[in-house]
């Protein structure tokens, strides 16, 4: 099938691919939280109406879990997790009701497009 004479197109394809791909980037790690709003350890005034989490990779929103709990560890009711239509790496969680003053913990667990699961937590403080 692939013999001597037909080697040349393959080489051209391989070098073309190398050129097209361009400069190497960063190593592909499993998905990490890049930034969030409210940001970790931030004090937000007025209280946020939604949480936004930006990850380093595309996320499978169907398997994403984001929970919000108050300083006492009681879960706070949120809307369901949605994905930013323009960027599959961003998750948005609408909040059902305005937050009372205090410290909150966001726990997230996500599955990246490569199928790997990662999780983490961060805190923020809400003030009227």
């Amino acid at each position, binding site marked *: 099938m692939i013999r001597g004479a037909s080697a040349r197109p393959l080489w051209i394809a391989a070098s073309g691919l190398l050129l097209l791909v361009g400069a190497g980037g960063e190593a592909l790690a499993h998905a990490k939280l890049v930034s969030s709003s409210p940001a970790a350890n931030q004090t937000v005034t007025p209280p946020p109406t939604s949480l936004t989490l930006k990850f380093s990779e595309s996320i499978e929103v169907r*398997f994403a879990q984001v929970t919000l709990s108050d300083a006492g560890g009681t879960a706070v009711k949120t809307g369901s997790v949605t994905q930013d239509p323009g960027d599959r790496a961003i998750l948005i969680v609408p909040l059902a009701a305005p937050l009372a003053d205090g410290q909150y913990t966001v726990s997230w667990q996500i599955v990246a497009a490569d*199928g790997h699961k990662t999780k983490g937590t961060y805190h923020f403080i809400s003030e009227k």
Partner: protein
Amino acid sequence: MDEALVLSRLLHFTATFLLLGSCAFLWQMAPPELSGRLEAQLRSLLRLAVIVTAVTAVAWLMLVAGSMGEGWEDTVRVATLREVLLETRFGNVWLVRLGLIATLIATVALGEGYRSRDVVVASGLVVASLGLVGHAAMDAGLPAVLRGINHAVHLLSAGLWVGGLVPLALVLGEGRAAKADGVVATTLRRFSGMGHVAVAVVIATGAINTWLILGGWSINIGSIYQRLLVAKILLVIAMIVLAIINRYAFLPRLKRNSCAIQRLYRSTLIEIFLGLMVIGLVSYFATLEPV
């Protein structure tokens, strides 16, 4: 569950590579008088490979559903499997792959005299579509598409090379008894012609893949992924050294020296063993985080 996934990957790669490489060998490398006999000898092995391909593809899907969900109970929960298939990237690719595997089954199951060419096309698509999942194909956009194509070409050339070693060993094993005739010599020459290209493409695409996944050439020896990647590269280098010795030391002596075919046979068996170790390694470390 991780262990089960590694095992499914190992068996899936092995079975699909065997189908692709063997049938390409039967179709393009073995002359007609040899290929009929080889096909009969390989028939039950290739049927088994098709079954293994299908079973491990389903197992792989179930295990991914379990790891995306909450563990073993999600591997058999229909709702979770549906969500994975319809609402994740992996699942969308897998839906296509299951369709391709159904085509492969039909190709082999329908009628006695299936054609090697059809199996090559079907198993080639099954192998190439693996390039669309995993680290190489993460994320969206053009770079991911190019990474996927590169990965697919890497898998195809690896399959053609390693899978073709099995019928090659059969030919050499038979040739040991008889004196090496012109048919065997022709087959070996053709396989080695294909082998040169396949090995070159394996190296080029493997290098590109490493560069894209690690973001450069510097190896962090503290990372298990990268240590095992180095081990894999060393094993592939050993396979290439064996292939070069076979081609340039033993093959030219085939007609004059009856020991040559014996040595070729043995070193092909070693090459197959090394190939299996390479597949085993990548089945494991490619499930780990690259950094």
